[in-house]
């Protein structure tokens, strides 16, 4: 599909749930509801966007809606690219999987699940990919501390641990 045909084609077929956004930098982008995502992806795949370049997550905490799952699609023949930004619900975010359309979505969605906690309904093996399987929490969320769950604990005891001299017993 040619880049200039994209906007009328999407506007004609998808009235609710798909909203075009401003495109400041050459890739047209759309905000998509989770319900409208799968039909839109199927339509884009059928109309020539044969490569799913990337699936990534963004956490806009404390803004609401907080999560965004960002899809970049590429048409390898006409060199058109499009970006879809899907906004799931804040608590228990669920997005339909695209792994049956593009096998490359499988690991990418696992990564988003692992690091952001966004679940992908219908995914064949939605398990952690980067973190250990028994890890608690989702590290790329903005309310997750940089050094992990032990950050607060360590901050409390670091002074004790680094003390070189024995503490004075009595002041003065």
């Amino acid at each position, binding site marked *: 599909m040619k880049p200039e045909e994209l906007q009328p084609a999407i506007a004609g077929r998808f009235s609710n749930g798909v909203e075009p956004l401003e495109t400041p*930098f050459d*890739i047209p982008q759309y905000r998509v509801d989770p319900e409208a995502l799968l039909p839109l992806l199927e339509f884009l795949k059928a109309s020539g966007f044969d490569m799913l370049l990337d699936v990534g997550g963004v956490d*806009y905490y404390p803004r609401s809606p907080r999560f965004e799952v960002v899809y*970049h699609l590429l048409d390898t023949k006409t060199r058109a690219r499009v970006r879809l930004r899907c906004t799931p619900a804040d608590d228990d975010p669920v997005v339909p999987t695209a792994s049956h359309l593009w*096998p490359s979505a499988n*690991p990418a969605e696992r990564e988003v699940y692992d*690091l952001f906690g966004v679940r992908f309904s219908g995914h064949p093996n939605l398990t952690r990919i980067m973190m250990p399987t028994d890890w608690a929490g989702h590290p790329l969320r903005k309310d997750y501390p940089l050094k992990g769950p032990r950050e607060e604990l360590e901050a409390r005891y670091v002074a004790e641990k680094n003390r070189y001299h024995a503490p004075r017993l009595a002041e003065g």
Partner: protein
Amino acid sequence: MAKIDPADLPLEYIDPRGYKVERTKDDHMIISIGPHHPSTHGVLRLILELDGETVVDCVPEVGFLHTGIEKTAENLTWEQAITVIDRMDYLSPLSNNLAYVLGVEKLLGVEAPPRAVYARVLLAELQRMASHLAWVGTTGLDLGAQSMFFYAFDMREGILDIFEETTGARMNPSYIRVGGLAKDLPDHFVEIVRAYLDKFPKRLADLQAILNDNPIFLDRVRGVGKISAEKAIAYGLTGPNLRASGVAYDVRRAFPYLAYPELDFEVPVGSTGDVWDRYWVRMRELEESHKICRQVLERLPAGPWRIDDRKLVLPPKHEVREKMESLIHHFKLVSYGFDVPAGEVYVSIESPRGEIGYYIVSNGKNKPWRVRTRPPSFYNTFAIPEMIRGELVADMVAVVASVDPVFGEVDR
């Protein structure tokens, strides 16, 4: 007691002693290769299901090198983040730098001066040569051609020496900065690069002479690990791996950046998508990169090597010692950095491993809100099962090597 035929049992069941028994089809064996297997080029674990010596299925497991680089980058200023992004793809740090910096510059709306543009192209192409040489050396090693390793790494060393002269570091130089370069190219830059490029074709011919007609090598790579063009696109393969399958998609041509539109080079494309094609495409890319480097050397202009915007780049040191404003600018840039207008941008370049893209989200502050990398190695790694189904275990080594995954980038 009636005799139980093992084939009638379900694939997964709890036996009378309470143990969970997992079976695959009869006579299939599951073996785990890695994460410390030398031929996996890093820390990749492959769970192979074997029927005799034939690979029936394969599941890659990654994440052993996860260091949270994207999370760390969110907590650093825009300039500081360059240093951690270096460390993703440790075989081509300058390509990582370049893609990220181009993204930030796009958000800022600045453009590097011509000298910096050409220097970036030259360094990126030298980086591609260094990376492909490291690849050809280790792949030769994996397939039994040990001298490849010594020849190729010696050639790569010459490029790393150029980097050391230029940037001060062999690896992870963090040399490409927002608005230009970290410092000017050294005075003798053109001479040392030219001296290296003059030697290069002869030495590359030596490399090719070792492998191109070597019957042992050809037996191990021809027709092994095939992936069709449609499958390669569906799996998100990019770079030499995609072009080996016959798809002429190169970001340098499809979405030209920097000075690439003016440069004359070919995009080598394979036909069958087997290991040989992936080898051949990379060998041809070495020649093309050499050609690009030659052209850039001819055109490398003199002049400023970074933009003259004191809100974005550090002032010259002598001014810091003499002028109050420059001192303030210096202090502000080092301590706070600079703000980047809010917005999001996706910028991709052709790294040695494929399309490396950065989806950068800014909220208008001095730190990136989100730096999402599109890691080419990540998608390439997860296409390995498609390539080795039906091949022999011994070919697994050739296939994994031919995909050229770098696990610093897969796991980030």
